């Protein structure tokens, strides 16, 4: 999963302090593993260097926690691209998918589109596995099935969540 993309997404709703970002990130995505401050500021400075964020203002006093960051238009397109591109299907992808879905929700993007794109990518691999199954022996079959069921589970979860979130947003908007 990409902390940088997540930060960019979070910043879309308005400039924030690094501390703010860490807290929001931990609340929403960090379940088991809260971010280190070091990690936060390293990421922010990389984004700053790449021109994806800019300093919105520095409050009086010392230390990195005094700086407020804002996302640049390049940063917005970077998030955009990330959300719109499929993750390479692999096991234990939930964390990334989860983050993407939440971000899509927070930034007002369609979770359904995300699903469609991801599904296309997943299906590409699933077709491959299905084909391999047809030609292979029992061991191949078992291995392929294991992978297939996991990919299927990812998609199902994504599907369910996307449907729920789209509904939710519709409710919120109404």
């Amino acid at each position, binding site marked *: 999963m990409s902390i940088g993309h997540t930060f960019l997404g979070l910043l879309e709703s308005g400039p924030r302090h690094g501390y703010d970002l860490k807290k929001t990130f931990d609340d929403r995505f960090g379940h088991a593993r809260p971010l280190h401050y070091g990690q936060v500021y390293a990421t922010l400075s990389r984004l700053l260097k790449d021109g994806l964020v800019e300093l919105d203002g520095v409050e009086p006093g010392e230390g990195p926690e005094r700086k407020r960051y804002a996302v640049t238009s390049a940063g917005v397109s970077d998030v955009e691209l990330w959300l719109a591109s499929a993750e390479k299907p692999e096991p234990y992808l939930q964390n990334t998918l989860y983050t993407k879905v939440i971000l899509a929700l927070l930034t007002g993007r369609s979770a359904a589109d995300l699903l469609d794109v991801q599904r296309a990518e997943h299906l590409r691999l699933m077709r491959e596995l299905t084909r391999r199954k047809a030609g292979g022996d029992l061991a191949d079959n078992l291995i392929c099935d294991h992978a297939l069921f996991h990919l299927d589970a990812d*998609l199902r979860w994504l599907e369910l969540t996307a449907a729920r979130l789209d509904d939710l947003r519709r409710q919120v908007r109404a």
Partner: protein
Amino acid sequence: MTGQPLLEADGLHKAFGPTKALDGASIAIRAGEIVAIMGPSGSGKSTLLHCLAGIVRPDSGHVRYQGAEISAMTDGERSALRRTQFGFVFQFGQLVPELTCLENIALPLRMEGVRRREAEARAAEWLDRLHLADVGRKRPGEVSGGQGQRVAVARALVTRPQAVFADEPTGALDSLNGERVMRLLTEAARETGAAVVLVTHEARVAGYSDREIVVRDGRTRDIAREMEEAL
């Protein structure tokens, strides 16, 4: 993409009262390919399938089969098309309960005028092919759901159709039976060169397809192609 598609739909609209089931859907299916149609419930997948198969007439838009406009055909012509060129597998309840499984498979041939003996002989071949040899004399009420679906697959393919339309063919089956049905369906379709239009919401079932089309709010999208083009 070369040559003329086998089946092509363009700008289909279909409304049932206030509900717009199809709102500008388009799709092209080439001979022999297996296309999955996916999308959320109520998005118009079945309606699209029905339009493609000439079961339902769209309000506007074109459906062409081998270049011929299906929506311009009379009911009789469309029935004949379905009888001779298409095969169907639905989720359940498609076998005539009074007829034996063998007779059910032979039914499309008989409707074409094939003599009973020959029709049943050809049906029997399909029974073997789909590992159904021992259910031929039973009635649909006496066989399992998976067996019934395989009988339906045999019935859909017995006329060697150009296209098979399958609407949630595994919807009522468990994983194992679903796999078997899909495997037999796609293998047989590839052997006979039939195109398959497969409506499903299960990715594992869609895994048997060559590509997928997503239907959302009555409109179709070919995501894979969009992604390719975006690159």
